[in-house]
Every structure is written in C-alpha cells, then in structure tokens.
C-alpha cells in the first residue's frame, strides 16, 4: 500500500458552510497553491477518496448525507474539518437548525482553524493527514 501514502485523494462536502471555506478549498487546487503537484486530487466519488474534507456546521438535513459519504469511503480514511463552523459551529451554533460541529455526527481527526480558513492552513491540515494515514495503514 505504499503508493497510497503520499497521494491522498480528497472528497469535499459542503455542510452548511457560507462558501468562504469552500472557495478556499478550491483555491488550493488552482495555480497559486496547486496541491495537485503533490498528488492531491479532488474527486467526487467517496469510494476513491482517502480524506473527507467537510466545511460548515451540521444541520438536521445534511447529517445523514455526511454519514452516508463517510460510510461509503474505504479504510483507511481521515476526516478533516475545515473552518471554525466545522469545528464548533461558530456563532451558527445559536441557530435553531444547527446541531454543532462535524464531530457531533462522525469522528473528526484534524481541525483546521480560520474564518474563512486560509489555503495555507488547509494545506497544512492535509500534510498532517499524510502522517495519520500512514499510521492508520499500519494498523
């Protein structure tokens, strides 16, 4: 499985984010930051993905979608919560429709801070994923 170690493929799901973190995740893939040179590819199929990136808090409607995507992914897998909303819900946690951060639904491995999270921070999070993936592969 050594080929998996350094090229994590990511799948991105927008929880109830305001779009700020989403476009920063996309900005990571474009020429300024260009994470594709490290073999990081954004794909739409959960079965192909190693890393699940979630932006935004969880509400009653999308909780089941997040669970479904998480269970469809093959092991080993890592969940990355990008932005303050995904970590704790930000001020949205006072809203009637918000359950809280992503960790209320699925286990989260790494939290990336920021509102909106900067591309550098997101890349830093993905780098931390590499180590974690390696450990999980050994198990």
């Amino acid at each position: 499985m050594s080929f998996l170690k350094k090229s994590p493929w990511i799948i991105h799901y927008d929880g109830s984010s305001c779009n700020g973190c989403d476009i920063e995740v996309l900005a990571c893939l474009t020429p300024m930051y260009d994470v594709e040179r490290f073999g990081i590819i954004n794909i739409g199929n959960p079965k192909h993905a190693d890393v699940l990136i979630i932006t935004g808090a969880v509400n009653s409607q999308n909780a089941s979608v997040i669970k479904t995507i998480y269970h469809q992914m093959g092991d080993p897998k890592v969940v990355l919560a990008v932005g303050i909303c995904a970590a704790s819900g930000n001020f949205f946690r006072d809203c009637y429709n918000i359950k809280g951060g992503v960790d209320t639904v699925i286990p989260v491995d790494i939290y990336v801070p920021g509102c909106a999270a900067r591309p550098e921070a997101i890349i830093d999070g993905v780098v931390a994923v590499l180590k974690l993936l390696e450990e999980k592969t050994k198990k």
Partner: protein
Amino acid sequence: MASRTIIPFGPQHPVLPEPIHLDLVIEDEKVIEAVPSFGFVHRGLELLVGKKDFHQMVYIAERICGICSMIHGMGICYGIEHIMKIDVPERAKYLRVIWSEMSRIHSHLLWLGLAADAAGYESLFMHCWRIREKLLEIIEATTGGRVIFGVCKVGGTRRDIANSDIHGILITLKDIEKDYQNISKVFRDDYTINHRFSNVGFLSKKDAFELGAVGPTLRASGVSVDMRKTGYSAYRHLEFEALTENSEDCYGRCMVRVREIFQSFNLIYQAAEKLPNGPVDIKVTGNPEGEYFTRLEQPRGEVVYYIKGNGTQNLERFRARTPTFANIGPLVRMLSGCDLADVPVIVLSIDPCISCAER
C-alpha cells in the same frame, strides 16, 4: 409514449461545491420537469437578531455567503444607517463602491472558471482562478481578508486605503485587466464554448420578467434592470450603463458577466479618481428604531433586505431575499425541455449560490 424516469441530482455532485438537490423527471433524454428541494445549507441566521446586537449582525450578515460577503455587510449597514439617519462620510461611500466592485470581479471570475470547467476547458478554469488570485492579493492587502472582507460597519468602514497606495493598486488592476482581456476573447469567440452555451437554457424576455429573474439572468434576456442605477452609496456619481444581451440563453448570461468585469474595472478607476479626502467613519450612538427596505445589486442580482428596529440593541426583524432564491423559478423553467447532458451548464448559468438562497 416513452416511460418516465426520475434521476436524483445531488446533494453531493460534481458541478458545484455546494449541495443542491434536483429531481429530474426525464423521458428518453429530455428533461420534462425539474423539482428542486432545499434545506441542506439552511442555518436560520435571520433569527439570530434576538441574540446578537445590531453591530454583531453586520458580522453575521457577511457570513450569509462567503462570495458576496462584502455587499451583504454593506446592505445591512446601509439599512441601519438609513433608520438611524446617519450621514456616512463620502470617502467611506467611495471605498465601499471600490470594494464591492472588487468583490463583483472576483465573483464573476470564479463563475467564469466554473463555466469553463463545465464546458471541458480545464486550463481556462485555471487561468481564470490565477487572475482571481492576483485580485485577492489586493483585497487582502486592503481589507485583511481574502474572501470575507469584514470592512463595513454601521457608520462607515473599518479600514482606509491610503492615498499613496491607490496609485499602486490601479497599476496592478490595469495589469489584471490586460490579462483578463486575453481570456475574455476565448469566452467570446471560441467555437466550442459558443456551441455548448448557445441555444441552451432558453429563457424568454417575458418569462424572465414574469418569473422575477434578477441580475445577469434577467439582463441576458434583454431586460435592463440594475440596482446600482438607483444610485445607492457613491454609484450616483459614477457613469455606467446596465449591460444587456438579447440572446436569452446561457451564452448571453456568460457574455453579460464577461462584459460586467470590464465595467467593474472601469467603476473602480472612476471611484479611485474621485475619491474624496476625509474620515471614513463616524461615531454611532443610540439604537435603531423604525424599518427600512434596502435593495442592492449583488454579483448575482438584486438582493433585498428588510430591517426593523424597535429602539433596543437587538433588531426586531432581519430578512434577506437573495438573488439565487429569485432565480430558482426561472431555473426550473429553463430546465424543462432541455437535454439531460445540458443540465450542469444550465444550473451553473444562473450562478447559483446555495448558501445565499438558504441562509
């Protein structure tokens, strides 16, 4: 009669990063009906007025959407300032125009990139986003944020652009415009893009008007409506025309946005030239009491805010009708009768911003 099939589209799908769900009723390869369903991004932030004071609501309004955040912040400030009869300094008005036009350019470039990707032009997508990054650098240097600006506050702006910096910013903007000029030619003249977008997602002038389309979707159907022409903030001192197209299809909507970017550059140049000296904010005392109805032009079209204050720190009611929500009706009309393969392009053509629509 061929049998009917229902294809679910979304919420997690490859067209947009955002979740939207459509049930597409198809007969052979033709879409007969599209039934949208919502709620994946719904947060209910309008009800936070009871928990946060009106200064904090500006922070919250900016997070309705990360792409149009500047104008959301400006909209709520504009409404509260009208209720409290605050006279905003002229310099702040011009700065707000400069930043909102920058946000319009970055939003349209983002859309053009996604449109290029939908047409199969990956490198064009990369080029659009490369240019956008240059603009984000200016935005970051002047406001401190890349996507969420956070510069508007009740009574003016939080930050100022030094007069000595304006010259450098204009030089960089002219470079970006030159770069963009080359890319706009591809959207204008390329055979494949023409073929992919022309006569797709037809929306007649009558339908667009009656279904209440807004922004580029409306203007591409030949109706000249642009809220900036009402002259809010400093727009009354600037010269520009509402840009329209008559092709009534996806190509027209693309062209309106391509041309609006040049218009926005021009507006920034005009505003920078006329930028008056003076303070950028005034002290605000007291609480808002009364109601106001604000109408501004977002990159995606007309946005409406209803703001009601009752003399306390908390507003009594805050309501936003965002452009994407108004464009969903026209979108459903465009989708009925189209080919299944055209669905992604048509959904994209209204520039959907789901987090705006659901708040």
